[in-house]
């Protein structure tokens, strides 16, 4: 069985991120780390491999060359190899362009299962998996908090606004896992040291048959028009309790239609 995990390198959340006012894109020159939700996906892939007895776990990403370093964490955890699509023409790709590129990379691998982390910490979309699944024409289960795999089928339990669903899909399939699904392992020292010698492939758009105008801003269908200050929260209304505070709070809630 082959399991592909799509990962993204995001600016490390502890280092201050900013949007470059000139390109209007996220300033990615800061330190990069593996998107924390994707680490859950890598962990889940490794667990599936453990229960299945054997499987190849390949980690795939679209990003700059710098992304190789954080991606090696996945190899250190136990993934077998990594594939990075690094091409200047891909910078600034939106959902449409990114999903197109990743789908091409995934088709090249033909994995039985594609795993995603539920969302990226830098863009909060939770949308990539559905776009890629559609391009690959595979069934999708998202937000998976519990996963089982048996007889060529996967079964995922996930939370929705109303409770939980259990959804089943035959392989080949695509899944997005939530951070509730597992506690990722720490790479062992041996794992970290062994990561460098595992196969690491860097591909260009051309290697995938994706034209330059199908990627980057040219291949995107959305754009950032402007950046601005968030709307001010408004001044704090501060009151001292003289016994009437509960009533005043209630009135405030009613006025703001929060009740």
């Amino acid at each position, binding site marked *: 069985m082959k399991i592909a995990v799509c990962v993204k390198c995001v600016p*490390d*959340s*502890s*280092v*201050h991120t900013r949007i470059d006012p000139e390109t209007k894109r996220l300033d990615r020159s*800061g*330190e990069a780390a593996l998107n924390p939700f994707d680490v859950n996906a890598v962990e889940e892939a490794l667990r599936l491999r453990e229960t299945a007895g054997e499987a190849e776990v390949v980690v795939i990403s679209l990003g700059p060359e710098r992304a190789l370093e954080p991606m090696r964490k996945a190899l250190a955890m136990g993934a077998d190899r990594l594939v990075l699509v690094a091409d200047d023409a891909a910078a600034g790709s939106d959902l449409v362009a990114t999903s197109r590129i990743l789908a091409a990379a995934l088709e090249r691998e033909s994995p039985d299962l594609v795993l995603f982390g539920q969302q990226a910490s830098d863009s909060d979309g939770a949308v990539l998996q559905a776009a890629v699944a559609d391009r690959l024409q595979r069934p999708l289960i998202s937000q998976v908090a519990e996963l089982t795999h048996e007889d060529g089928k996967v079964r995922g339990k996930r939370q929705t606004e109303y409770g939980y669903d259990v959804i089943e899909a035959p392989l080949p399939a695509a899944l997005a896992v939530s951070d509730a699904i597992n*506690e*990722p*392992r*720490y*790479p*062992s*020292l*041996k794992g*970290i*040291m062994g990561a*460098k010698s595992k196969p690491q492939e860097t591909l260009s758009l051309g290697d995938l048959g994706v034209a330059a105008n199908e990627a980057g801003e040219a291949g995107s269908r959305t754009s950032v028009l402007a950046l601005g200050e968030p709307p001010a929260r408004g001044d704090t209304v501060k009151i001292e309790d003289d016994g009437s505070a509960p009533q005043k709070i209630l009135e405030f809630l009613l006025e703001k239609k929060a009740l």
Partner: protein
Amino acid sequence: MKPADFPAPFDWREFVAAPSDPEDERIEVGVLIVGGGPAGLACAIRLGQLLEDAPELAARLGDVPVAVLEKGKQPGSHLLSGAVVNPRSLRTLFKGRVRTSEMPFYGRVEHESVYFLTRRRAHRIPAPPTMRNHGNLVASLSQLGRWLAEQAEAGGATILPETAAAKLLVSDARVRGVRTGDKGRGRNGEELANFEPGSDVLARVTVLAEGTQGHLTGVALDRFGLHGESPQVWALGVKEVWRVQKPLDRVIHTLGWPLRAGAKYREFGGSFVYPMGDDLVTLGMVVGLDYRDIELSVHDLLQELKTHPLLRKLLEGGERVAWGAKTIPEGGFLSLPRRLHAPGLMICGDGGGLVNVPALKGIHYAVESGRLAAEAAFAALQPGETPWRPGALARYDESLRESFVWEDLRRVRNMRPAFGLGLVLGGALAGAMTATRGAFPPGSSSLEPDADHELISAGGAASYPAADGELTFDKLSSVFLSGNKTRDDAPNHIRVRTDVPPELARLWEHMCPAQVYEAIEGGVEVTASNCVQCGAITAKGGRLTPPEGGSGPEYTLT
């Protein structure tokens, strides 16, 4: 009452062990370097250069000839300094390979000023000869560390971040390597679902380059009886980096306010303000930890400093972009270990105390000591020699004593103790020492441990400004800015007695720049996850040990 009355529940023996992993699980490397800072990385870089021309030796050292363990997220995450760097050691290290102009420096020091501050005024005073920085280069040590790590890797070193060195592996009276720290333990030490035990990392030569308050360095000094004539003493530095509207054209040092000059306070220190390019400025407050006032808080003194007209003007319209804290060994020559090597072991950099306090310089000594350690290791690994034979690494100590490092430190050896006599008298004595190049006074003064000074309640906190969120900041938002997001349920890595009298609890509460300690009924409460691993607690009655690898601050600009 003094902090030493309540010693930390720490015994170095707990951190020395024989290798215990089964043969097939242990990790073997050629030379193991603990600490990815300037000393450790200089050692790794020099070894890479030497091994380039000695392929047979490199082959004999195995798959990983040189390994560097770094407890931070990546090299640089735990590095913090001013810094104005004397480039001579880096030039020597990179001779013929990399020019200084290619290294990540922010510019050469052209002008410098020293001020004596009062609450409202700044009196320019001539720069003491020990503090002449012309020709030196401004750097962010964190950035420099990241760059040095890249060089080390390019030279063949394997850098292992997020890996703490928890125990010194010793058997047959020689150092065999280190045991790395466990990961995935809970608050009470229990094994969590993703528990990963540490590993024995064995090496032919182990180099400890852990920086100030080095954990295994302290253990090694005890284990091998290496302590020098005087105990080590430390200062605590708290610094910030600001984006500013107008560039600063000079390097500034200040003395005086907001520190108090009277001898009874023992408030020895000052501040620095350095330009980092055209749009950044770094400023910090450094105070000796032998101070006595319970209420002294170096973080708050830094906030107070910023309210001085000289600094307020500089920072006007600017934005704080970084914050951090770290101790600096201040004992100098007198506190150096009597030897910096033992069978299979060498000690470099700040961990060994190689800091010139009056000149505020340590980075170039760290680099030089790392380079010399590499050469000694290389010699000791040659055919016909065994690195753990007692004396095999003696050449490290010899070369260090013949180097400018030793000469510099010896010359200024009595300055720090002089300042224990107060600013004015100390200043006069320091002047005399400089004029005579260390010949006066003859012999050597001595130092008492920081924790041995009687505490007093001298109301230092009365003048600290409230945090306004624009110029002045509280500790918690500063810890946040350092990038610290240590796991809350990690075991407490700070060894300290919690049933202490209120004066001591309050001392720690004010002392700690990260708000780890809180005076409560019956003692002190420790919120270890705030810790930025500065090391101040070790000077004042407790003992810092390394937490889980990868925890702590994620400095990038400090």
